[in-house]
């Protein structure tokens, strides 16, 4: 529950004015590299890509090594249709290019992904669920905050929308500035807000889910701000929540560092080789505005 974690952290920081963080040098012994599968697909009519790379030592810099020569097959289990993802440029990006308004499938369809690499086969499942729409995106000009690094002067945007009525829905709310995904604005929701409980059904999204702006990179006049609401599965929601917890881990209320779960399972139960990463399929809705002077 990120609301509460963030809030706890802020509350604690307010009390402990003397607390401090500084960067130190720590040596750890890295383990052998593992295969990383980055497979977040949508049913849009645009090129769908899966990226294969390797893990690197935690403190390494530069680009991560890409993995070419793997075989990737996506099966729409509902229709039986197969999609071959090919690494034509030998850059670790495996792509499937739809023709016209074609797509991998429709709401309710189930999918299986198979990745074969160096005699190991990994498989994962996903499903296409419905999503909801953003009603509006607003923005207002804010001055620099107390920490001008964390809150720069610029236009801060907020979106309004509500959960689709009925059933349990999971969303990944993604923010883009000039078509660039803002990875630091990391919002996902169960129904109208977080938590695996009944009661958020049909609820409007509340702060901080509505926030679209990374305080380090607010929009300026002329910038395009877009919100996309991706439907995700319950498992993908859990993956994002775990990833967020590990990525933002630290401080007094840090959780034990641990591996974020993966849905890529080695089909050979005797093999000790594991993969890292995630396979997900989403239906997407979006709304974009261009920031005008206010």
């Amino acid at each position, binding site marked *: *529950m990120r*609301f509460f974690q963030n*809030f*706890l952290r802020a*509350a604690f920081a*307010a*009390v*402990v004015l*003397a607390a*401090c*963080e*500084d*960067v130190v040098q*720590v040596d*750890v012994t890295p383990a052998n*590299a*593992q295969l*990383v599968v*980055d497979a977040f697909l949508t049913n849009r009519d645009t090129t769908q890509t899966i*990226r294969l*790379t390797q*893990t*690197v*030592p935690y403190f390494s*810099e*530069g680009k*991560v090594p890409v993995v070419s020569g793997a075989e990737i097959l996506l099966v729409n289990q509902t229709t039986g249709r197969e999609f071959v993802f090919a690494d034509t440029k030998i850059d670790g990006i495996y792509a499937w290019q739809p023709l016209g308004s074609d797509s991998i499938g429709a709401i309710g369809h189930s999918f299986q992904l198979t990745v074969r690499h160096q005699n190991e086969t990994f498989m994962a499942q996903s499903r296409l669920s419905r999503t909801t729409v953003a009603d509006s995106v607003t923005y207002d000009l804010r001055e620099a*905050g*107390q920490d001008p690094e964390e809150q720069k002067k610029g236009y801060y945007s907020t979106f*309004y929308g509500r959960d689709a009525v009925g059933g349990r829905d999971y969303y990944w709310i*993604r923010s883009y500035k000039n078509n660039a995904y803002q*990875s*630091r604005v990391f919002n996902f929701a169960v129904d*109208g*807000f977080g938590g*695996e409980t009944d*009661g*958020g*059904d*049909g*609820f*409007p999204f509340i702060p901080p889910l509505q926030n679209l702006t990374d305080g*380090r990179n607010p929009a300026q006049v002329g910038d395009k701000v877009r919100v996309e609401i991706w439907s995700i599965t319950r498992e993908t929601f859990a993956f994002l*929540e775990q990833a967020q917890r*590990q*990525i933002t881990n*630290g*401080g*007094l*209320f840090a959780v*034990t*560092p*641990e*591996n*974020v*779960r993966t849905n890529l399972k080695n089909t050979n139960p005797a093999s000790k080789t*594991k993969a*890292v*990463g*995630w396979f997900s399929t989403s239906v997407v809705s979006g709304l974009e505005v261009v920031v005008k002077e206010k």
Partner: protein
Amino acid sequence: MKHFLCLSLLFFGCLALGQPVRAQAKFSVSGYVRDAKSGETLIGVTVFVRGTNTGTLTNEYGFYSLTLPGGDYDLGVSYVGFQTFAKQISLTANQKLDVELADEGVQLQEVVVTAERADANVKDVAMSVNKLDIKTIQKIPAFLGEVDVIRSIQLLPGVSTVGEGATGFNVRGGGIDQNLVLIDEAPVYNSAHLFGFFSVFNPDIVKDVKLIKGGIPAQYGGRLSSILDVRTKEGNNKRFSGQGGVGAIFSRLSIEAPIIKDKASFVVGVRRSYIDVLAKPFLTGDLKGSQFYFYDLTAKLNYIINAKNTVFLSGYFGRDVFGSPDFRFNWGNSTATLRWNHVFNNKVFMNLTAFYSNYDYFIGFQDEVQNTRFDWNSNIINYSLKPDFTYYLNTRNTVRFGVQSIVYDFRPGNAEAQSQQGTNPINLDPKYALESGVYADNEQKIGEKLTLQYGLRYSVFQYLGSGNAYIYDQPADGTPRTPTAIQEYGRGKVIKNYGNWEPRFSANLTLNDRSSLKASYNRMVQYIHLVSNTAASTPLDIWTPSTNNIKPQIADQMVVGYFQNFADNGYEFSVEAYYKDLQNQLDYVDNANLLLNPNLEGDLIQGIGRAYGLEFFLRKSKGRLTGFLSYTLSRTERRLPNTSISRGEWFLNRFDRPHNLSITADYALTGLWSIAANFVLQSPTPATLYTNRAELRDLPVLPTLPDERRNTFRDPKYAYHRLDLSATKKNRQKEGRRWESYWVFSVYNAYNRRNPFSIYFQQNPKYTGPSENAGNAGVNPTQAIRYSIIGSVVPAVSYNFKF
């Protein structure tokens, strides 16, 4: 009842064996011992026949009973800091003798550190017990100059904490939920204010603090590691008086007065922090409108109805509040205790306690523009009744027996979401349980050298409906489990029943007047568990009962020790070695979801633990220089066999600190000044660190830990050490005025050590990733952070008064 009969038979059987029959008629002398100045009862006062070894101690309510053969005796009543009382008595019938002790005067009291019997360290059968009276606690240099019970406890051997600012404390390798923290016998579920910088106990109201780490007597149960028994003082029943202080972070005021002179009195104390008020001008931008403060109120009423009956009513109510215009967050404990002391006759004393305790927190969000609101609260409530009897059988045997029942009402989460369309309630099922215990214990002197205390407790725990029992088929292998069935139980129906025998044993072999050997064994069973997987416990952590899936935790502890006093009891020394074997320790699957999760039990697993250590303690209690030194060498580990957690191997607990040294000293200068210092040196706690990372396009740094082992990193250069200093200046008391006051000047972390609370790895905030992103040129994707709670010297001044 069956068990109670068994216990009774067992005990009276033992007593019969231990007691040769004597023909001579015996009589008892009994009564209360009180402070002549305030009427307050005194705990642990020695009542003895002068010139012999025969004697007894007053109990927690100041009551004593001494049975002797008929005859003339020269009776003495002595207590450190008070004038010894002496009286000739002629014992021809049972007799009642209440004693009021006069204090020795201000000058001498200044150098008294301990208010217990001078040779208690050696003579008492109890071991692994640390008593701190409030005068001792007040002498330890404190954070922001504010005297604090729990932070003082952390200086004792065998006690540590995961880091400053963290809630609670760890005793002999146990978790923070394994301490039974009592205020006037009512449990406190979160002992922290401001996340752990201060505890809930108002030092002006506290009379006596006792920490029991081992050889735990049978009247206590329900937690594995320790009992922290905090007792509040009684109001002055002679005259109106009060005390208080004004400090850097909060102010305190307490008043006490007789209601009926010598019979009934009250005391009430309040504290409130005001950093929020002081910080207001600095709270601008998004911090504007922030609230953060705490307050608490502690009160007690006592009434001596007659020589046989006394009643006490005490209560605590405290709250921490944080908030902003959009968020509200608060938490706190409330407790109420009603006690009735009844003297049946010269030999049988009863205390009947009834208490109520509630810990709750509340979180609320609101958005006025959209007219939405989300409120959430969680509680643990309990009610208990506990009759406890002490039977002063004869000078060689003191029997204690009783029963206790606690009703638990767990409300893990009640939330309400409100929008324009209406209100949606979100409720996690409440859980109910009943915990009962029956116990008996005897302290027996065998010959001049040997004292035994043996006891037995039988505890029963019933997890009750109405509620749902989750059934899992999958074994707990370290991965989350989904229930295969959910079974509904009606109101009051027993979902799961547990029963455990808990033997307790202690022995004291006196070697000579100044030294003794002690040994003890105890089994403790804990039926309720704090669900927390963060480094420091948060106020949001919830308690859960043992269920059909969660088994009660069990600990077996063995301790041996050597105790010696020297220089006319001016120095106390002890060394103790302990070993603890723990079962059913609560742990969590990787990526467990502990908040608002109806299937919480599917994310919990249980393992085994072991903890062992060696504790040294030296205390100097006489002279101008007083203080204590404690050193602990210890280890605490855990294992989750047959799971993937840390590969199913033994791993160190997060709060493991092999070396733990603390020295605290107070020196009374001539005149009105005294100075004090406190030094702490501890091994750093171990950490789990990522070794690798993966890059996803939308998650630029996804850390990985292919090795899977927990808590393997520890670097001695991150050892914790700190020096605190303080100086106290007494103001001259004006002739004929009761107003006494003193200033305390303190410096916490005097040499500005930046002690890490933790080392952790994170994505560099400047890194936007992924690596091909042009904006990342020259920016390291990741960094290691040393996180320190206190990163500077913290000076403070406080003004304290008494009238």
